[in-house]
């Protein structure tokens, strides 16, 4: 049983793609599409790595990241932020809030694979 990745993302096609890529790499992929209840899902698992989209229905990815870092259980969990807006200030904000990595869409499958592996090893 591989390590658990939680993918918090609302675009069905992207969920499908990332799930496929990581599953094939030996990860157990959990997905969640809603921002509001994302934190509860995280604490219920909790995952080894989190992939977090910025634009989520209900709650922004940044807010969730802040909560993750404030929480004893998740404060050390590696988090990779995903965004389609691709602006520098988003990257800065993410890193300041304690994201482990920041990835702009679109990405190559290999990028996702390597990043998540690295996060786990680090």
């Amino acid at each position, binding site marked *: 049983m591989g390590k658990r990745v939680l993918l918090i993302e609302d675009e069905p096609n*992207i969920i499908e793609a990332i799930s496929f890529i990581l599953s094939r790499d030996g990860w157990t992929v959990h997905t969640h599409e809603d921002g509001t209840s994302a934190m509860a899902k995280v604490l219920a698992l909790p995952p080894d790595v989190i992939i977090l989209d910025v634009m989520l229905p209900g709650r922004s990815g940044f807010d969730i990241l802040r909560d993750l870092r404030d929480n004893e259980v998740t404060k050390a969990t590696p988090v990779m932020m995903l965004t389609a807006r691709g*602006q520098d200030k988003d990257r800065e904000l993410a890193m300041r809030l304690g994201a482990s990595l920041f990835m702009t869409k679109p990405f190559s499958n290999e990028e996702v694979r390597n990043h998540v592996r690295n996060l786990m090893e680090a």
Partner: protein
Amino acid sequence: MSFNALIVIALGYVLLLFTIAFMAERRAARGHSNWLTSPWIYTLSLSIYCTGWTFYGAVGYAARSGLEFVTIYLGPTLVMVGWWWVLRRLVRIGRAQRITSIADMVSSRFGKSTPLGVIVTVISVIAAMPYIALQLQSVTLSFAVFAQTEGVGWEQNDFNFTAFWVAIGLAVFTVIFGTRNLDANERHHGVVIAIAVEAVVKLCALVAVGIFVVWGIAGGPSEMLTRIDQSDIVLWNQESGRWISLIFLSGAAFLCLPRMFQVLVIENADERHLHIASWAFPLYLFMMSLFVVPIAVIGLDLMPAGSNPDLFVLTVPLSEGRSGLAVLSFLGGFSSATSMVIVATIALATMVSNHMVVPFWLYLQGNQQAVISGDVRHVILLSRRLSVAGILLLGFVYYRVSGGGTALAAIGLISFTGSVQILPAMIGGIFWRGATGVGAAAGLITGLVIWVWTLFLPSFGVDAVISQTVMEQGPYGLSWLRPQALFGANGLDPLVHGIVWSMILNTAAFILFSLVTFPAPLERLQGAQFVNVFDHSSAAPAWTGAATGAEDLLIMSQRILGGAEAQAIFEAEALRQGKVGYLPDVTSDFIERLERDLAGSVGAATAHAMIGQLIGGSSVSVEDLIAVADEAAQILEYSNRLEAKSKEQERTARALRAANDKLTALSIQKDSFLSQISHELRTPMTSIRSFSDILRDGVTSDAEHEKYAGIIYDEAVRLTRLLDDLLDLSVLENGQVELRAQTGHLSDLLDRAVRAAGLHEGPLKIIRDRASEDVTLTTDIDRLGQVFINLIANAQKYCDAKAPHLMIKVSEDSTGYLIDFIDNGSGIAPDKQELIFEKFSRVADGSKAGGAGLGLAICREIMQRLGGEVLYLAQSRGAAFRVRLPQVKTTTALEKT
């Protein structure tokens, strides 16, 4: 006693006066002017009233007309004793208004009128001419007396020669001390001291001669009285009319003669000096007149018949061999004459220069530049010096023309009468607010004309100017215009005749014209200030008896000057007074300074009124209030201008801020628009890239393969639609869109739209009323169809009812057709309804519906182009959109685009 020695003595005396005057000026310049401005000096300076005419002529007058000479002393005495309040008023006004001469006084009172200044100056100069001539004559005669006793024969040429050089000498002295510099207050310390010395000299001389006569010749007072009783002098019949006229005349002249005005008002250093002068000067006059009758009686007794009684003061001591006394007497007469001429010429030169030369010069300059350039000072001094010379020249000319024949006293009285023509205008001006400049001018001119005709011209002598015929029968046989019997007033004494007519007609004209004319504003203001001078002038020892606390003053000052500055002033004063703390004693000195400080901020009148109110030393007069209102108005106007300016700046700033806000908003909008586009483009691209990557790896099952290829296809379509929408919107927003008007049927159009919306993909049911759709439209059918498709597709995407349906209703109102699209979903939350027509304003969560949030924005743009609108119907239960299509205007709107 040689004649030459006398000349040396006279010159020596003049040199002494020069020295005294010079030293006094030096002291004054260094600020040591205490004793120079004592009331005693002031009183002595008033003695220029007693001129050579009084010194020599009074005795002659007594010898010729008995006690009548006393009137000349009684007039001023009565003024000093009984009318000192008039003097005080004149002095106060003079100080408060910075009056420089009697001409200035009248001119200022009547609205700073230049013509009036000129008229008064002309009157004064003409009236002074005989008087100056008189002084030249008295000095010349006194020289002649000495020359004759020495046996030197004097020809007429010698007289003229002496008179000429005396005039030159006086001109030099006057120019040096009278026009040395320009003092703002026209004060001349050197001259005043010199005439005070001369006053002492002439009094001593006359008293010495008198003592010699009473005790040396008559043998004592009782013997003297006996001789007086036996003389003809007491037998003279005294006419009451003449006495009254002469007392009035001398009293009025005391106020109106330019030289008297100069010493009384202009040279006055302190109003309180009048208190001492009011008894000391009459005493001086009394001393001057005490021995007149004894000298006259003895002179008549001793001197041979036909000798000139005007010269008894000199000839009596000489005939008794008392040459020393005679020299003293000579110096007394010399002093009297010179002091009068000096002061008179200073006063007249000031008037001529200020009211005639300088205005004329400024007129010639034609602009204000000269006033600023500082050139003026030079011009004024030069004009004064030339005026001095000119006035003395006129006096000399009068002396030559009149031939020095007339008795001294008679000339003096004629001169007096000329000067007192100013009296009605001056006294009326300071007591009667109704007096006007026109009235003053009318009175002055009337008086001047009558005086010239009845007294001045005849004074040159019979046939000199006015012929004997005219004197007796009137000009052109008009007997009512006879110079000495105007309007048939026969049998009057010529002098009384002249005084009465000139004063009556002068006063009558003044009052009459004042009543029928209306004063100019400036005249009214000046009138109020002159008449009410005691109510609000600050010239007096201002704030004596101050009964207020320093705290009150401090509070008020802080209000005006601001806290820090006011406290600094008070602390500095406290320190100066050697007091501990910050509250000084409220001395009048301090208050005056404080008032000046305040005046710098709020204006003089306001400062005065405010301090006055606190001190209680002076009530606030109507004029104060007017002045305050004036200042307030000015300040108000100023602040209004400031306010207007600042409002303007505020408006500009607001406009700038608005523009800036708009730009910022636009910039934010642009940023967020780009960020949105980025998001909308990247999301499908991510899927495409990711799945094509997976497919390329070739590790997928057939089912997966087909599914992922489908996703790639859908996302590519989504991308294309997004780009189409973006381009469409951009074109619509920029107004570059080309509308093509077509005619179509609404029902057909809706059919096509329903088909195009791809309803087969969902459960949405369309409810239509085809009867209402039977409408033919002329518009851009394709664009309108695009709007319909969008609205139907939205309902399909977002309607969350279990059995979703969309009702399409068509109606018509006065503005055109209304096509409503109403579904049975939960609708749009009220707080989002505003936003739905904005770009990327996807209300529904997520992008399941696949739209980029541009549809409604595009609908809005299209409907705007078509001259209609699309709006959300808030009151509806489900989501409800209304398309309004103008029926009539469609064509015009299309033609325009």
